[in-house]
């Protein structure tokens, strides 16, 4: 499946409100590598939507996603001197983001295990309203519930399966691109994606049945 989301369509993606057309990413990388902060800011603008969305989908938490995106861009900044400007920066940034989210997720899980803090699941706060502007409240509620369950089911997948599925399904990467982002073989990626689809189906079924059985209480 490929998504129509322009944020994940190509390498030259603008930010929410770019002041000027973004020049080639390679040029920005070259200039940023010489210490040009304006060039690096434009590079961040061109990639921020993709990075933040990926972190958000991998972590399922807005604050954690912002932390992860910041860390990913800082790691990109520190790696500018080693980057080949002739190669696209997006695969490298995907890989950094996945690694940062993996580390952050592990730390967060450890912290919650220590503090016995319940895992938050507040899609109404974390997720924005639908962009399609439908006026049917019942349909909106059903859609919001479906998204909430999907997000939760996604978050309950093992990290590698989740990352493979998110990159493949939500970000529309090819199997080869996912393999590059995960530092894995294409066969491994297919295995992760296959198991993730089946596990997501099982989790969604369980969540839906739990929600139907007790609509006022959060399913475990």
């Amino acid at each position, binding site marked *: 499946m490929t998504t129509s989301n322009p944020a994940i369509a190509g390498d030259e993606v603008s930010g929410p409100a770019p002041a000027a057309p973004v020049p080639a990413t390679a040029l920005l990388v070259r200039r940023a590598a010489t210490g040009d*902060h304006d060039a690096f800011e434009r590079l961040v603008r061109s990639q*921020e939507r993709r990075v*933040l*969305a990926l972190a958000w989908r991998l972590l399922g938490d807005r604050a954690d996603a912002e932390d992860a995106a910041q860390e990913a861009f800082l790691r990109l900044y520190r790696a500018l001197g080693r980057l080949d400007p002739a190669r696209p920066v997006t695969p490298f940034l995907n890989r950094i983001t996945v690694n940062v989210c993996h580390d952050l997720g592990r730390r967060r899980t450890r912290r919650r295990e220590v503090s016995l803090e319940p895992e938050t699941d507040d899609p109404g706060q974390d997720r924005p309203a639908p962009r399609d502007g439908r006026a049917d409240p019942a349909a909106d509620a059903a859609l919001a519930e479906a998204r909430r369950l999907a997000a939760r089911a996604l978050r309950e997948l093992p990290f590698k399966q989740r990352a493979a599925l998110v990159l493949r399904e*939500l970000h529309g990467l090819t*199997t080869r691109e996912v393999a590059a982002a995960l530092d894995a073989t294409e066969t491994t990626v297919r295995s992760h994606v*296959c198991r993730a689809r089946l596990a997501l189906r099982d989790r969604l079924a369980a969540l839906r049945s739990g929600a139907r059985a007790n609509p006022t209480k959060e399913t475990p």
Partner: protein
Amino acid sequence: MSCSDPRRWQPKIALEAGGDLPLEERAAVSAHREACPDCRALARELAADRDVLADLAAEEPRPEAFDRVRRAVMVAVREEGADRVRSGAFRGRRLRLALPPLAAALFALAIGLALWLPRPILRSPSESPAIESPATGGEARAPQPAEAPPAEPGAASVVSEAAPSPDRGTTPTPAEHLAASGPISEPASNRIEPSRHEPSPALDTVPTAGEPAITIQIVSEDPDIVFYWLTDQPQEEPDDATV
């Protein structure tokens, strides 16, 4: 009728749902799915789940989240960039960029120092005051004009008494002007080596025959600096170069 081998077919159905199945397996999996109700149901469920995921993909973080991230990143980058510049992380590139202007600046500085540092100093060829003032002229080694024979040509280092000439009236000569201002004290390093330089022919032809020989030299530490002589008649090379 349940699937005959779900462990075999379910992963293939899951791959087929996303178009990830290798080309050579597609026909076999498709044939099994058409024949197996369980696998057909699984394929429908997987397709519905993918629709939910696609709907999830349509969501985006709020615009203010981008601004927050970008601002935080740029603040950290500017701080870190300053640290990296201080620690030399950008030194290689910056040095390469700065080398031509740096070289030009250093060259200009060297030229300026060469022109400025060895400033010419008025100096007597002898260790005694260059030109004795009339009041203290008794210490001069050169003979008095009335008693001594005419100054010999080439007496480069001899400083004679700067007696006022009746032909010139009350206008002081440069030597007299210097004599009136008293002896010039200079560090030992600025002492002249008169025998190394020839008098300037142009300045050596001042027609003041009959007057006592007056010599003014401009000396410096740099041997390449030209010494200018002002003399009123040809003089001979003195026996003692540093008289």
